[in-house]
């Protein structure tokens, strides 16, 4: 049951996106997220949406697979939609008791929903096409510049990759402890909320004890293998930009330029011609 949780799930399809340098993908994702807050016209959404669709097609990750992994996020999406729909003041077009539907409400709800949707799909596209290892490697190398201002980039990346390595082990262990406690008559599924929370204590205590022991062992094993932080360290596969990565960076600016043109120049013109948008 706990093993169904997949973090940073990867979908290998061998596409161009998979082969891109993780740094490129990280910056693309960052830029894409930031770009969500740059535009606010209909045309802007079209540009961002079309870009996303093209990227999904290139990635060869089935859209269904992407959406399936986002069950928890749907709740958030619907919640935001409903909130925006009824809480925005403006020109009322429909009313039932205290619930008011306004023209502005519909507009913000639709746009807000789209924005969130783009954001989530956009960033999961990155995790689907990048292995956790590449991701931490990309973070470490990509953010290397921050070391100058004393950001412990290497340490953070190392922590992340160790966490990724131990999450499945700890999940399995939790499963085992739960079964062991269940065999001794513990009941996690019934009873009052308070009782259920109480039943979790005998799970978390041994889990924490074991996690600390593992951390201790691992620290010693790493030291024994001459790990001394970022001092004089080399990599087996250092990240190197290829031609395709440079093109991808270039396309990033093209995307931004098109988006801003569409949003700031084209859209105002269009509204003059077609005022209903």
């Amino acid at each position, binding site marked *: 049951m706990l093993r169904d949780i997949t973090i940073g799930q990867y979908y290998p399809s061998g596409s161009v996106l998979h082969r891109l340098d993780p740094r490129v993908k990280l910056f693309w994702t960052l830029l894409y997220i930031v770009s969500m807050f740059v535009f606010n016209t209909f045309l802007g959404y079209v540009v961002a949406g079309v870009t996303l669709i093209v990227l999904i097609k290139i990635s060869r990750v089935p859209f269904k697979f992407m959406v399936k992994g986002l069950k928890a996020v749907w709740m958030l999406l619907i919640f935001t939609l409903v909130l925006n729909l009824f809480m925005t003041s403006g020109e009322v077009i429909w009313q039932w008791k205290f619930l008011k539907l306004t023209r502005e409400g519909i507009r913000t709800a639709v746009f807000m929903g789209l924005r969130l949707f783009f954001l989530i799909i956009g960033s999961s596209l990155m995790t689907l096409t990048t292995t956790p290892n590449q991701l931490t490697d990309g973070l470490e190398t990509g953010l290397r510049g921050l070391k100058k201002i004393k950001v412990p980039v290497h340490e953070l990346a190392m922590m992340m990759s160790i966490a990724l390595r131990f999450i499945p082990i700890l999940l399995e262990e939790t499963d085992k402890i739960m079964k062991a406690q269940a065999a001794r008559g513990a009941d996690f599924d019934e009873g009052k909320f308070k009782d259920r929370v109480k039943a979790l204590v005998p799970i978390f205590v041994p889990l924490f004890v074991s996690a600390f022991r593992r951390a201790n*062992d691992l620290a010693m094993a790493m030291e024994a293998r001459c790990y001394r932080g970022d001092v004089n*360290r080399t990599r087996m596969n250092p990240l190197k930009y290829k031609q395709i990565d440079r093109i991808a960076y270039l396309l990033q600016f093209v995307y931004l330029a098109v988006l801003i043109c569409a949003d700031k120049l084209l859209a105002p013109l269009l509204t003059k011609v077609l005022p209903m948008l």
Partner: protein
Amino acid sequence: MIKANKLAYEYIRRDEEGNVEGIIRALDGVDLEIKKGDFVAILGHNGSGKSTIAKEINAILEPTEGTLFVNGLDVSDESKIWDVRQSAGMVFQNPDNQIVASLVEEDVAFGPENLGVPSPEIKQRVAYALEKVGMEDHRGSSPNALSGGQKQRVAIAGILAMKPKCIVLDEPTAMLDPGGRREVIKTLHELNKKEGITILLITHYMDEVTGADRVIVMDDGKIVMQGTPREIFSKVDEVKSHHLDVPQVTELAYELNKRGFRFPPGVLTKEEFINALLG
């Protein structure tokens, strides 16, 4: 290769204010010499100081008294600590808690990466190390998908990639099934014979000891017996007085001798037992 002189180590337990609560003398005047290319097994019941001596050799613990030289390097010398760890690699009991990366080959590369080895050479070393432990087909796997014995062999490969002179293994088979144990021990003997790597194997399993060149028995922080497996296991009573067992065949021959049989002292393997019985 390894030379200890009156080596002692004390664990100091402190209470919350940092006052000394108690002192445990885990090693007490250990004199030890291990030659290059030897396969040495260390036996001893729980708390006899086996892990402590292993950690000393790896410079994880600093000697309280006495001296310890590994590959000619003084382990107390702060500036040589990384050279000591590179010359004497260490494999621990729990295979899960010593694998760092989520990919077998990346884990094997971890040591050489820390040593600052150039990338092309790291690749060669990883290929070499994985081949030596027979795990070359799993280089792209996740460690979580491997059996205990395979994980432990990956851990050995991780040390091997650092090109050590000596490997210290602290109960590497304690968490493995019999098949996994055999795999690991076989790998160790191959490394010892073919690559000339000095092996220091700490274990609780007597049958893993019989193939060693030399056996060291520890009790209460001291070395109490030393010799070839045959020498050690011909003294069944003495071994037992240190709360240890002898291999099952040895024990059987010993008990039978009490009833009038005439097995030579220190029968170590089934074959020897059968030959002695028939001949």
